[in-house]
């Protein structure tokens, strides 16, 4: 069953403050993601990979086309859905993990990680415990668990970013460069964690430059160039 079906998606940026400059971000995007599949998005920087993901997450408003998502309650077009439906989906089913940790200031690392969990489950202590276990798995030093992530190194921030996205077991995970600043050992751990999610039924759309990660993680690849899908390949 397809969890995601994208038809004829395009995104045109109209920048009024730059003298109405128009930039074509995406055009003619068609593809599907099956339930439980891990699809990799590759392409040079600027080719539209992040834009595509943001359109799916509704951070960007698509200019035309449709993004059909099979949620728990039926098929919904993410392009046309109203804000409240999107907020509900983001809370319960779809998680987006950006390339860099967007930090909410003055929140300790453990709470950043389990934030999504206790929005849904409401048991703070249990959520924190799970977060600690995950941070331990990822090799984050114990002293940093209650510190503010704003001061962490790139790799440390990345680990928190990934942990935050994975902990709540979403139905659809959109993840941007999960292993970018990580050392090989941690890379393996993250890959393992995402594969774990796949076993529990999560579908994943993953942007990556890293051949090592792509080889081990993805079932299928989509290559983007100048905003269009130019080839698809089985990993």
């Amino acid at each position, binding site marked *: 069953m397809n969890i995601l079906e994208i038809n004829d998606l395009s995104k045109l*940026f*109209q*920048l*009024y*403050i730059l003298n109405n400059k128009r930039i074509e971000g995406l055009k003619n995007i068609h593809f599907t993601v099956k339930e439980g599949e891990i699809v990799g998005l590759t392409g040079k920087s600027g080719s539209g990979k992040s834009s595509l993901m*943001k359109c799916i997450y*509704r*951070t*960007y*408003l698509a200019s035309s086309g449709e993004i059909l998502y099979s949620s728990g*309650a*039926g098929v*919904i077009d993410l392009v046309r*859905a*109203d*804000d*409240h*439906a*999107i*907020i*509900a989906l983001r809370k319960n089913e779809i998680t987006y993990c950006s390339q860099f940790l967007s930090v*909410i*200031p*003055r929140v300790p690392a453990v709470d950043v990680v389990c934030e999504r969990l*206790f*929005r849904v489950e409401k048991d703070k202590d249990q959520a924190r415990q799970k977060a600690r276990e995950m941070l331990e798995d990822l090799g984050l030093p114990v002293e940093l668990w209650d510190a503010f992530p704003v001061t962490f190194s790139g790799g440390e921030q990345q680990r928190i970013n990934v942990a935050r996205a994975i902990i709540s077991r979403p139905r659809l995970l959109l993840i941007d460069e999960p292993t970018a600043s990580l050392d090989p050992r941690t890379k393996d751990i993250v890959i393992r964690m995402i594969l774990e999610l796949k076993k529990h039924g999560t579908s994943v759309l993953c942007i990556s430059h890293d051949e090592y990660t792509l080889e081990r993680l993805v079932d299928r690849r989509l290559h983007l160039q100048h905003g269009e899908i130019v080839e698809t390949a089985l990993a």
Partner: protein
Amino acid sequence: MSGKNDNWLLRVRNLTKIYGEPDENTLNLTGPEYHSNICPATESIVACADINFDLYPGEVLGIVGESGSGKSTVVKLLHFDMEATGGSAWLRPYANGHSNILGESGQKKRTIRNHLMGMVYQNPRDGLNFKFSSGGNIAEKLIMAGNFHVGNIRNRASSLLEKTEVPVRRMDDQPSSFSGGMQQRVQIAKAIANNPPLLFLDEVTTGLDVSVQAKVLDLIRELQQDLGIAMIVVSHDLSVIRMLTDRTIVMKNGRIVESGLTDQILQDPQHAYSQLLVSSLL
């Protein structure tokens, strides 16, 4: 997916406030395209017009705009601080959402305000009575909701002050002896005293020192997570909006120019004015 449409907490349609004597052209001659709130023919001022939005339970809605955009007006109209010129609003917990709260009698409005709404103003003097102690201010809200037991009132007041990180030993001190940030926190404690489903926050951190601002915002975020209150946050500061809200409405010259998910407004603003605002983030 149409079932989602009926679960709203607050529904606002065509909310309008005009000062002066408008004629039939007034709304057509004012607004963001004209860069003006003032009608050239009648000199009436359109503070806000045609405001439509829904707020769902537990959601945080931000209203952002510059001076004269009408953002504070919207919230003041919904909190009955001012009379609306037109439009309707329905609140789910009141008459199951079937009765326009803007058309109710003064006494009913007062009941709605006391039981179902909380408001935090930019200036603590608007929200607090400086002649009473801080505990007395919270007591006022509790008494208005029908609590007449001094012991219970004091217990609830001290637990609220604890929650908003105001030292409980200052419960019997007057707010005039508090710092600005602490006054705001007493206001917040008072606003949530009756566990309202809806909380209005009108420029609550404007004018505060940065570190104090941070503390107040953190508190609001925590309260929102713990209590799940739906909030409307008015601010001209986009970083406050980014930190607190799920959805945002951008207003200019009294009209809504764009509304959408907060991250979408901040990363992919569609309207020219929104793009201007976002690019002006320091």
